């Protein structure tokens, strides 16, 4: 997502990421990645739980899709940093607003199951009814 930050801003959106772990861990990640948008720390998983994000099964590590996702990430130049306290926590991505309006919801089903930047950008530009991916 960070590679597409300028496109989101040009489309009129704010961008933020939420992560687990402590501040030192998050600061190191921001410095390593050059992230331009706010990185919020949810060490207690309050927002993760409110967003109904899932926990993976350890068996997901063996899925072929997980292997392919790691290959894609490496090919795109991304490397995995520390996993932290909740290695089985899955992520998600959302497009909200203006106001408390859901435009797009993607709750990851397993590792590497992420909404594409193009999908998120379309949700920003499109508005309208909420889409759950």
């Amino acid at each position, binding site marked *: 997502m960070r590679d597409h930050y300028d496109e989101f801003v040009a489309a009129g959106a704010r961008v933020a990421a939420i992560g687990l772990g402590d501040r030192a861990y998050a600061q190191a990640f921001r410095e390593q990645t050059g992230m331009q948008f706010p990185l919020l720390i949810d060490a207690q998983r309050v927002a993760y739980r409110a967003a109904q994000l899932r926990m993976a099964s350890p068996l997901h590590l063996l899925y072929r899709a997980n292997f392919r996702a790691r290959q894609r990430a490496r090919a795109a130049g991304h490397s995995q940093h520390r996993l932290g306290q909740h290695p089985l926590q899955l992520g998600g991505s959302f497009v909200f*607003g203006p106001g408390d309006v859901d435009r797009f919801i993607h709750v990851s089903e397993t590792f590497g199951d992420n909404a594409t930047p193009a999908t998120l950008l379309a949700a920003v530009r499109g508005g309208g009814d909420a889409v759950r991916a």
Partner: protein
Amino acid sequence: MQASMAAALAAIRLDDVDGRSIELGWLWRDAPAVIAFLRHYG
């Protein structure tokens, strides 16, 4: 009627890496916001 996910998250306050407390709803109050929950830092 089910509240939106945005409404469910709006009142939560989290600190950013510089220690500033941000209410999540502020992010999308007057503009669309893309919010990514990371699986890990990487």
